[in-house]
């Protein structure tokens, strides 16, 4: 039995290694001197590790600015998404008002419609509002997060009604109930939602590509994609750019993976 245990584990380790090999290789090449990766056979490790690519990236290419844009947009998107979806999710689960269930059914049905369907009219709408080429324009889709409402509602359903009734009898207003009783209970799902929105907005590409034109406003993925279509030969620089773009979210995920994975299951299996 022990032999079987080890062979299965060894096989899993091999599969895992193959899976993360592209990421390890990305990091390795980003420390190579220019031109080193363009050899046959392709080298796995840098002969003389250097930070030159990163220096060039932040110096000449001004990647610091794109990093700042990405951090700002993802942070604001996360904050705004929480502000909009948590009260709504709670209301749909626990507060009785006319039309509630009908509206919620429509929201669930709307989950089928991909956001790209309305992208062209949304662009025109934001142009009319003067929000094209601004942070605000990039943030707008994150306000309309139906998935977040759904996630929070699922979690709120488990809060006992008696608890809320008792608070009402004690004279607490609905706003106080949300802040003092419901929010503390919701902490795990709030972390899940925050990680989810942060990662999604950080990784988002198509909408920022459309709405942000100014070099001073673009996010890391947009800057990387546009540059990758031009500097096809510069392996090492592009790998350093890929590291800067994806490492922050990879670390965030590793730190908070428990929350992220549990939220993923609530969202997909019940949806």
């Amino acid at each position: 039995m022990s032999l079987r245990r080890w062979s299965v584990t060894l096989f899993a380790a091999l599969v895992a290694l193959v899976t993360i090999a592209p990421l390890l290789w990305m990091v390795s090449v980003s420390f190579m001197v220019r031109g080193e990766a363009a050899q046959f056979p392709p080298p796995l490790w840098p002969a003389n590790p250097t930070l030159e690519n990163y220096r060039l990236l932040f110096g000449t290419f001004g990647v610091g600015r794109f990093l700042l844009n990405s951090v700002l947009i993802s942070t604001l998107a996360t904050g705004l998404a929480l502000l909009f979806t948590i009260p709504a999710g709670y209301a749909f689960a626990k507060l009785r008002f006319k039309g509630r269930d009908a509206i919620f059914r429509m929201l669930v049905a709307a989950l089928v419609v991909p956001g790209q369907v309305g992208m062209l009219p949304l662009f025109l709408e934001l142009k009319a509002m003067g929000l094209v080429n601004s942070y605000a324009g990039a943030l707008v889709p994150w306000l309309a997060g139906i998935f977040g409402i759904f996630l929070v509602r699922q979690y709120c359903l488990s809060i006992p009604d008696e608890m809320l009734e008792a608070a009402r009898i004690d004279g607490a207003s609905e706003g106080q109930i949300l802040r003092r009783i419901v929010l503390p209970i919701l902490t795990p799902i709030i972390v899940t939602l925050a990680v989810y929105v942060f990662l999604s907005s950080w990784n988002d590409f198509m909408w920022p590509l459309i709405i942000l034109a100014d070099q001073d406003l673009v996010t890391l993925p947009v800057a990387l994609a546009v540059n990758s279509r031009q500097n096809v030969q510069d392996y090492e620089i592009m790998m350093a750019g890929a590291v800067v773009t994806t490492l922050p979210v990879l670390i965030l995920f590793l730190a908070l993976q428990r929350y992220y994975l549990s939220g993923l299951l609530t969202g997909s299996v019940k949806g």
Partner: protein
Amino acid sequence: MSAAGRASEARAGWAMSSPALAAIILFFVLPAIASLFLSFTDFDIYALADIGNLRFVGLANYARLIENPLFWKAMTNTLLFVAAGTPLIVALSLFAAMLVNSRWLKWRPVWRVALFAPYVTTLVATAVVWRYLLHTRYGLINYLLSFFGVPPIDWLGDPHASLPAILIFVGWKTFGYNMIIFLAALQTVPRELDEAARIDGAGWFTRLRHVTLPAIAPTVLLVSVLTIAGMFQLFAEPYVMTQGGPAQSTVTILYFMYEEGFKWWNLGSGAAVAFLLFLCILAVTLVQLRLAKRSGAI
């Protein structure tokens, strides 16, 4: 509860849900509906400058799309992605889930996170990485294949290899997500069932076919639909890796829509593409609902 209490609860319900509802209507529902209306107009760069140039053209955009070979190319490519990619990704994720679910596996959480990691990486960044991994002369993939005597493949330059190349990347990027969904389903399959079949002498494949798969059939369906929906939304992959080429072999519906709308500023025609994309995804969803009802999953 008192009538006043009920009224204040209802007021709070509206107050808490209306900001989100307003945002959803303004930035999601209205644009989606407007897409249909926009598709009946000739909205282009002239209308963008002066709305007075806008004309209602009926179904002319759709008629022109039907005659446009690039539109059909984009449609065919996307359907190829769906037809080839869905079984590949479902099989890959199920295999990974069964491996991670194996009762003989040590340190399960480590392997689970490692296999899931590609899914959370930034699509654009890993697409750039894979473009180099797939490089004809200096790429690691061709180097590894050379040990098996395979001559160098021009992955992203050969119209026959470009679509499989992007599929390999998409499979690597997304299988972890489906693996987690499969894993949750597999954990509900009683071990005793599998054990009993084993004692009866059933081999690995027989148990997979007659014990595991029937037990997780609804999840297979769910993952297939999620994957199909994902395949209809490929955009950054061709944008970064091939720019739709070579010979337009990787132009997807969304890539075509993007170029119509934001490269050539034919927003009316782009909206027609968006609406057709919506119909495709709606059709897939309806088929899924019907299948789920027939199999008694809902």
